[in-house]
């Protein structure tokens, strides 16, 4: 976000041959952040952030490993032991991570690990797209979690309240999920448009409301599974569930239609951003709302619509959990953390649709790998959340990455464009 090449006392304007006449806008850190985020030269930073996170993560692996810790205890007696044990711990953990995410010879099917990765990646793609789309319009959608909750609810309700033929039932359920999420996203959007209420505040509150509503709903008569006493709703009918893709290979492969829909959604968002007038408006509003207004765009309406579309995407993410995975029903934790993880994914993907898909695959791989890592090396699954947090921190601090890896300043490549200026 900050440009570390600048001397600390530098004025707000850029020192690269500046447009002298341009009055500096009142600080808009968020916009600058978005600009940094979507710059192509940041690809390397992203990759290095992941590498750095894995490095820092390895220290945590060592600390959490009993034998390694023990070996460090008698470090001065046998220093090599400590290093050897640490190496084993890290190696085992990351080999397990790899096996869990990509290929595990021990699994009955060669597709086993990939199936898990894709299963985790699908909902993250949807919520990542939701956050990314809002990002591009200059909005910070923290509310993907709540929107996904409503998507999951609407999807499952349509799944067991309606009785429709195959395919149709699923489509209807998905549309309902989309609408549910869109409604929940539209609320903060319209509040921002009409009253200027900040979307970060409203979406956080709406997340809480959605989460608590879900907990209340699943134990209500008519919704709760009558055969159970715990907090779980009735299951969506067979026709409404997302079919498994690789069931013909091996019955346990969980990967389902959601990942295909996620890829389509990424393509759709890409089209929307780059080849639709709405996308043009959205990006203009995100870049400079004043100029967008002067050019005749309805900024307030754009905010409201963007949030509705973002909510719809998150809603589909929720449905891909509630209609795609066992038990095909609502539980208080049915969508896990996909809304918040979507923020990470959007950051990883630099708010670009295909980047989001890549980010979701990485995140999905980490989550799939964590399970295996826990099983084999005893590394807590929470380790993945630590890695995730580290990645976000390193991405949010590009200056740090650039310093650590002595990258050439990204601004330099951009400033070549200024060569063309003047007469």
């Amino acid at each position, binding site marked *: 976000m900050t440009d570390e090449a600048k*001397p*600390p*006392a*530098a*004025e*707000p*304007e850029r*020192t*690269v*041959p*500046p*447009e*002298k*006449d*341009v*009055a*500096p*806008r009142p600080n808009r850190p968020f916009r600058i952040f978005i*600009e940094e985020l*979507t710059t192509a030269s940041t690809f390397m930073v992203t990759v290095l952030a992941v590498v750095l996170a894995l490095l820092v993560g390895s220290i945590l692996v060592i600390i959490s490993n009993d034998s390694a810790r023990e070996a460090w205890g008698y470090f001065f007696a046998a220093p090599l032991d400590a290093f050897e044990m640490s190496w084993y711990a890290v190696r085992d953990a990351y080999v397990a991570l790899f096996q869990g995410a990509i290929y595990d010879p021990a699994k009955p099917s060669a597709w086993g690990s990939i199936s898990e990765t894709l299963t985790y990646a699908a909902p993250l793609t949807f919520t990542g797209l939701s956050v990314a789309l809002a990002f591009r319009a200059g909005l910070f959608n923290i509310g993907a979690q709540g929107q996904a909750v409503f998507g999951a609810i609407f999807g499952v309700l349509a799944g067991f309240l309606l009785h429709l033929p195959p395919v149709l039932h699923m489509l209807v359920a998905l549309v309902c999920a989309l609408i549910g999420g869109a409604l929940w996203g539209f609320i903060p959007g319209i509040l921002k448009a009409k009253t200027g209420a900040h979307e970060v505040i409203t979406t956080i509150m709406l997340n809480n409301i959605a989460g608590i509503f879900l907990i209340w709903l699943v134990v209500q008569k008519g919704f709760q599974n009558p055969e159970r006493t715990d907090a779980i709703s009735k299951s969506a009918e067979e026709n409404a569930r997302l079919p498994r893709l690789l069931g013909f290979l091996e019955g346990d492969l969980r990967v389902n239609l959601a990942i295909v829909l996620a890829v389509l959604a990424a393509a759709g968002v890409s089209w929307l951003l*780059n*080849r*639709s*007038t*709405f*996308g*043009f*408006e959205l*990006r*203009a509003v995100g*870049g*400079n709302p*004043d*100029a*967008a*207004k*002067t*050019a*005749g*765009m*309805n900024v307030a309406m754009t905010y409201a619509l963007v949030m509705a579309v973002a909510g719809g995407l998150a809603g589909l993410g929720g449905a891909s959990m509630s209609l795609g995975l066992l038990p095909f029903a609502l539980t208080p934790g049915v969508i896990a953390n996909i809304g918040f993880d979507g923020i990470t994914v959007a950051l990883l993907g630099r708010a670009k649709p295909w980047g989001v898909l890549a980010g979701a695959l990485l995140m999905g791989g980490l989550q799939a790998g964590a399970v295996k890592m826990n099983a084999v090396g005893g590394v807590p699954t929470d380790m993945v959340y630590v890695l995730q947090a580290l990645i976000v921190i390193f991405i949010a601090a590009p200056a740090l990455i650039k310093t650590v890896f002595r990258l050439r*300043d990204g*601004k*330099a*490549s*951009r*400033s*070549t*464009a*200024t*060569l*063309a*200026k*003047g*007469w």
Partner: protein
Amino acid sequence: MKLELRGITKRFGDLVANDHIDLVVEPGEIHALLGENGAGKSTLMNVLYGLLRPDEGEILVNDVPQTFRSPGDAISAGIGMVHQHFMLVPVFTVAENIMLGAEDTKLGVLDKKKASAHITEVSQTYGLPVDPEAVVETLPVGVQQRVEIVKALTREVDLLILDEPTAVLTPQETDELLEVLRGLKAAGKSIVLITHKLREVKAIADKITVIRRGKVVGTADPGESEDELAAMMVGRHVQLVVDKSAAEPGAPVLTVKDLSVVDDRGHRAVTDIDLEVRAGEVLGVAGVQGNGQTELIEAIMGLRPAVSGSVLLGGAELRGRTTRQVLDAGVGYVPEDRSTDGLVKEFTVAENLVLDLYKSEPFGSKLVYRPEAVARNAKDRIEEFDVRTQSADAPVGSLSGGNQQKVIVAREMSRPLKLLIASQPARGVDVGSIEFIHKRIIRERDQGGAVLLVSTELDEILALADRIAVMYRGEIIATLPAAGATSEKLGLLMAGVTGD
């Protein structure tokens, strides 16, 4: 203080912003650094002020080599700087702002009394009246600038750098500033004046160094004519006066009647204005910044609701319409602040060229946006309007101010217009681009369009307008044909003196 720069070179990646620049400023000299936007003047001064480290070259103060790691070093060496954008805290008082960074304390408590006394002393010595207790945001721009100067002087600097000091000033304030600079010179201070305004340079500089594309292209003395200086600065001959024939006004296009508008704080900014712009004429609205011009234009454009009155375009009411509808009715708009209202910096040149046309054929329909058509359009417009850009896909923020403005002008003139509203079209634009933009405005007029020009620059009004309306405190206090108008007469009117 004698200042010498030897072979200063500063690179940003592949761009050489300063290429072996040599500069000598003698004690008690006003040295003008003349150059267009992006020529490298500001980079050079940032090097001198310790904000940037030069890649090569050295700085000598009184023949002693210096290394400035921060502005603090520069200040202790006796160099002060007044930035183009003031570095003042708006909600602080003058005294607090001046103390900032060099706070006097008594037992750990700020000693405001001492600071005020010091400020008063400095301001009396140099004839720069400021009220230490005034809150900065309530002061006019000219006075804020004076605060910046006083701030530098209280740090006991011997050399003062002023970066485009007149960009934000009214003609009267400019004159006052020049007077202050003469006083400082008489007191033995050296002054480096960064500017691209030829007239001021001629009026005050002892010596002129011209910079183009990062290199010193020559020195001149103020005796040189404006044309010669402009040619040095731009690198070719420039026509400073616009060739135009007499206007042939036709039917009224824009008729504003009894229009009243309030500003953001709810105060009446425009009061019962009547205006008429005919086809084939340029109506120039002259006035000091902040006399309601902005609000008037925003009300016409549908960006700000009017309190009362009407705005007719060829007989159709525009008041109450959205900006989209006003644009669609055939109004082109060059906003006064291009970076805030005219362009999306992150967008490419091509995208900015259709910022208000993206929904009309061939660039798009209601739903679909067509980048291919936008790219084709960009190619043509860039050529037609001589926009200097690396490519149509470069972000518009990478262009110089003049070329950014040409992007806006190209966009607004690339469709048939009934009315063109141009607000400060030459603000912060280099001489070469001003010439071009002015020619296009006159061509628009000659093709039968009506042009409403708003400018605080008298030269611009006098060069372009066929009729001149002077705005003062939200009212039009005089409308006169351009033929009989002189800058003295307009200057008085802009100050509210109707003097019959």
